[in-house]
């Protein structure tokens, strides 16, 4: 199971890298979504997948009686999902506003903050 998940994670990362390397913002956005998901799956796999018993301690015991599923990666993933989701929402709005204002989603043409034809700085007085 872990081996299979490793391959899934690898495939997702490959797609992510391909998408993020694009110069169009819209593809980069898709890459960011996949990036969040592939990282979450990676954390999940790192927490080891070995048991299907839910992490519940029976009444009267201080520690679980048998091997249980690891609850911590799930807590980490939940946090990471919330963060990546909110970031994606923000990026989506930002990209849309940037597209409206700058009339392009091609990162090569987004040169307003760093104009290309600025010329040399003053060389004398």
């Amino acid at each position, binding site marked *: 199971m872990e081996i299979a998940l490793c391959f899934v994670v690898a495939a997702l990362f490959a797609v992510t890298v391909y998408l993020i390397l694009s110069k169009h913002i819209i593809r980069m956005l898709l890459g960011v979504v996949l990036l969040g998901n592939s990282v979450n799956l990676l954390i999940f*796999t790192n927490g080891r997948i070995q048991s299907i018993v839910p992490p519940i301690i029976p009444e009267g015991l201080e520690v679980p009686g048998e091997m249980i599923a690891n609850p911590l990666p799930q807590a980490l993933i939940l946090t990471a999902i919330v963060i990546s989701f909110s970031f994606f929402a923000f990026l989506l709005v*930002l990209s849309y506003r940037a597209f409206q204002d*700058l009339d392009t989603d091609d990162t090569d043409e987004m040169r307003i903050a760093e104009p290309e034809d600025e010329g040399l700085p003053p060389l004398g007085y």
Partner: protein
Amino acid sequence: MTQGAVPLIDYSVILPVAICFIFGAGLLMMRKSIRWHPLIALPGLVLLFLADLTLLYRVATQGTVTMMMGGWLPPFGIAFTADLMGALFLAASGFAALCCGIYAVASISKVERRYGFFPLFFIMMGGVSGSFITGDVFNLYVWFEVFLIGSFGLLILGSRHEQLDGATKYCFLNLVGTTFFLIATGYLYGIFGTLNMADIAQKAAETDKTAMLFTLAALYFVSFAMKAAAFPLNFWLPASYHTPRFVVSALFAGLLTKVGIYAAIRINLMLFPPERAELSAVFAWVAALTMLVGGLGALAQTDLRRLLNYVVIAGIGTMFVALAMPVPDGDAVPSSLSVGLSGTIFYALHSIVVMTALYLAAGVAAHLTGTSSLREMGGLWRSNPLFAAVMLILLFAVSGLPPFSGFWPKVALVRASISGDLPWLAAMVLVSGFLLTIASARVFALGFWRPLPPIAAADRKVEPGGVVEEKFLAAGPDRALSAIPLFALTAFVIAAGVWPQWLFDLTDGAAAGIVDPSGYISSVFGDAP
């Protein structure tokens, strides 16, 4: 499984974070009465600074303090551990934030206050403060994201074209950088099964899985280098830091990149010392190239703020020098690693203060001359001699010239590099300082010393009153509010430059606590082994 009730005094560890979020949330609820925002935000920032100083005093006198969330026994709960390095960074960040807050009262317009300048400010400060005191790796990631989201909001406040352009690059690249951090943290958990830094430091010292830790250390370094804008991952910084309001630039340049440095020291140096030593050649090259790129980039800029962007990068390179030091061999006391690390921490504190001050001063200059381009600036020495003197001090400090605060940490770093058998790196520190001196001299000569250029002077006659067009919203009409923070920051620059020993005593202690983390570990786990 719990420690019992947390002693009341231990709440001082989380007080800086709590203050930020209480004020941030409170101001958010008061979004309809923006007239009150400055009146509430300023006391909040004063409180934050006082809380930071209290914590620094406590850590400096009693050693590292730890608070376990919910009283859970370590390593299960989230630990907040304030050691001397974290407390020093925290105090410097509180100081810079207070100064920026005062300046912001004068310079941030009503519209931007309505869009939430002060709440975002506090949220970002909460994230920065949390990063400096957390003792849990995943929690550090969460604080990274918290201050990142606050900085996104501040960056686009005003939504001019350049801002949207710069913010797009800043947001994507920083998101990828922090995701790298998360990936590394996922592997870290897979290897150690724990996220508590003290626990990891213990287990990493005992483990023999060095190949895995090596990969892990490299991954962490990539993500922190991206956050700190080290070459070759620095391109988001010059693309974005000159676009927002001057006070926002000042806040970013002062604080955000230093969190990356802090995290690199904390994780790469404290948790994985052997792997850090293996990677030291990479660190040395990154440090040298970052210094060079920063210095040369600063020389090539026309715009004052874009020039300062590269000065920030040069400073980042200087701070990475300590990570390139060889392993202490035990003979030399103090070792080149301790000396270099102490210099790096000193330099980071100096950089927090001086970069904040420089961007604020750039804002004042832009307000006075109506431009931030060095082609059109001029005549400030004659019209505002006091302000020009402050600027001269700041430029001296940032170039590393005595007798100001940038000089001593560079002395320590050069000394450490030479004793650590890296003379070329010591030369690089000096070359970068030389390039920055030329760039600073250009700023002063063009913007301050020379008389106003004829073209710009002709333009200015059209509008009486000295100020041309209020396109910068840099400093408002209230000059006291823009002068107080500049003078306060400059006072620190002079104090740390003329009497550096008190600060060196603190940074030496901080460096010792990182090189030998036993104090950190025993603070988390108690004295029992």
